[in-house]
């Protein structure tokens, strides 16, 4: 069969979500952010909620999320996305509000905001990208940086006595009464992408059911700042990140 006979509209099985814009993402080649943006857009498209979804973007690499997903966006100060999301959801309870944050934003400077938003059980969706490093500022230590991991501010590797321990904030958040769904996912292969997408969909559905805060961590790779190729980075993530940040649902009620 000739390729020309296959590439026909009636044979289309997968194309870019209409909720994504045509803007080329600024992310490095192979960055997990792009995959998460894609599945977030697909969930919004499949649920038919593009007109009801308000996103809050962080400070960090995903600051420009608003360029790529065609919904209304608020760009928050560093770490404060859950505060914006709280007010937005309280003032418009019938909208879907999603805060998209990285590890520096959520687990370092914004710990108070995320803890208290989750503890109040705000009916929002939180997507937490954990790549164990500060991407936008050039590869400094994050709260989630693994012990021994080399970064721009831990050039000889993270040491517990100097830098403290990597923060399992998702496990902490699962302890809070206000959260209904806390899960850790990844997006490095087709199976994990499909699972992560299901998790994000469930988080949005929980929001409509007013069950409390849904928190989806995506263990991610930052190949540029890890100084690896995208493929190597995904492998390194599986071998080094997953043992410390195990995948799966931590809480689902």
């Amino acid at each position, binding site marked *: 069969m000739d390729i020309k006979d296959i590439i026909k509209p009636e044979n289309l099985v997968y194309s870019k979500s209409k909720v994504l814009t045509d803007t080329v993402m600024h992310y490095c080649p192979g960055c997990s952010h792009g995959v998460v943006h894609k599945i977030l857009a697909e969930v919004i498209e499949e649920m038919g909620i593009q007109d009801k979804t*308000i996103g809050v973007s962080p400070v960090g690499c995903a600051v420009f999320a*608003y360029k790529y997903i065609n919904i*209304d966006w608020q*760009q928050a100060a560093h770490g404060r996305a859950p*505060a914006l999301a709280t007010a*937005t959801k309280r003032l418009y309870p019938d909208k879907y509000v999603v805060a998209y944050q990285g590890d520096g934003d959520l687990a370092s400077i914004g710990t*108070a905001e995320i803890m208290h938003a989750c503890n109040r059980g705000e009916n929002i969706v939180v997507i937490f990208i954990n790549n164990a490093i500060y991407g936008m500022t050039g590869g400094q230590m994050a709260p989630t940086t693994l012990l021994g991991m080399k970064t721009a501010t831990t050039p000889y590797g993270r040491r517990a006595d100097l830098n403290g321990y990597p923060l399992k904030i998702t496990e902490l958040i699962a302890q809070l009464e206000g959260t209904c769904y806390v899960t850790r996912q990844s997006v490095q292969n087709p199976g994990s992408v499909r699972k992560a997408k299901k998790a994000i969909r469930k988080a949005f559905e929980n929001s409509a059911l007013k069950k409390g805060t849904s928190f989806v961590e995506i263990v991610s790779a930052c190949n540029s700042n890890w100084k690896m190729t995208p493929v190597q980075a995904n492998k390194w993530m599986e071998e080094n990140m997953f043992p410390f940040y195990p995948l799966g649902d931590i809480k689902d009620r």
Partner: protein
Amino acid sequence: MAEKLLKKGNEAIALAAIRYGADGYFGYPITPQSEVMETLMEEMPWETTGMVVLQAESETSSINMLYGGACCGKKVMTSSSSPGISLMCEGMSYMAGAELPCLVVDVIRGGPGLGTIQPAQGDYFQAVKGGGHGDYKIIVLAPASVQEMYDFVGLGFDLAFKYRNPVMILSDGAIGQMMEKVELREPVRRLTNQEIAEKYGHWATLGKPASRNGNIISSLSLAASEMEAINLRLQAKYQKMRENEVRFEKNMCEDAEYMLVAFGSSARICEGTLEKARSKGIRMGLLRPITLFPFPEKAIQEMLSQLKGIMSVELNAGQMVEDVRLAVNGAVPVEFYGRMGGSLFSPEEVFEAFAKKFNL
């Protein structure tokens, strides 16, 4: 006939918020303004007007809740006192940069640091000169009575939405805590979501209809040329505020040879100084700036030809006096009298300082 109540300044702020159709209050307790949120929680406006009232985990969070609420075209406000306002300055810079309307009430206490819970006016610079980073301005209203605390909530929201900019009510512990008669104005109802969509849908984040692309509210622009253009647009807006929004009150200025300039609590005390001076045959007037930004510099300049001297009277080390001197530009002597750290002055004390500085 309008209802009149005996209320604290802080309580008046809360009652005004409900009656002026505020959609949301987000705050954190701090003396001497905690009665604002306490009163709101007692009134339970979510049961009547639908107003949201939420105790946040910090002032940082409060101001960022305002950011989120303002992004949605809602009338949102907070109140705090000096140290809390310091934490909010980052958020106010972001909101000014993103051109978002909100109302912030600062019931000043003595500083620096944790300072004292007594009234002061040491946050003039913080409010008027920025506080946060970057070239931004907020409109600053200085009430001198409980009635003005009430009325400026309505005025503040109107100005915030007229210019899509943060507005601050700069009060102090004396006005926040003192009780006075306050006349409740005709209530203004909250806008419906439909009305908000019609009025602000072109910029607010309300959910994207199929007819347009997503609205983006951000203060970020990495290209220098774009960021300069944004700054120029903001500066043009601040110039409009200077042209259209100056408010002040003159007291016995018609024949004045000497003029006191004072705002808020200080201006009230200076009314007594005025009486004392007049009883001694000194033709003294008082100019009370009601907007601290924009500052009533023209009103001061118009007085210069008849004046022998001006004294700025403030509960700080001399902050507004710098703006008075800029307006006067050396035309007449400008003196300053102030006290700090939560200590008030008496009308007599101000008069003695005035007499000494001008050798009268």
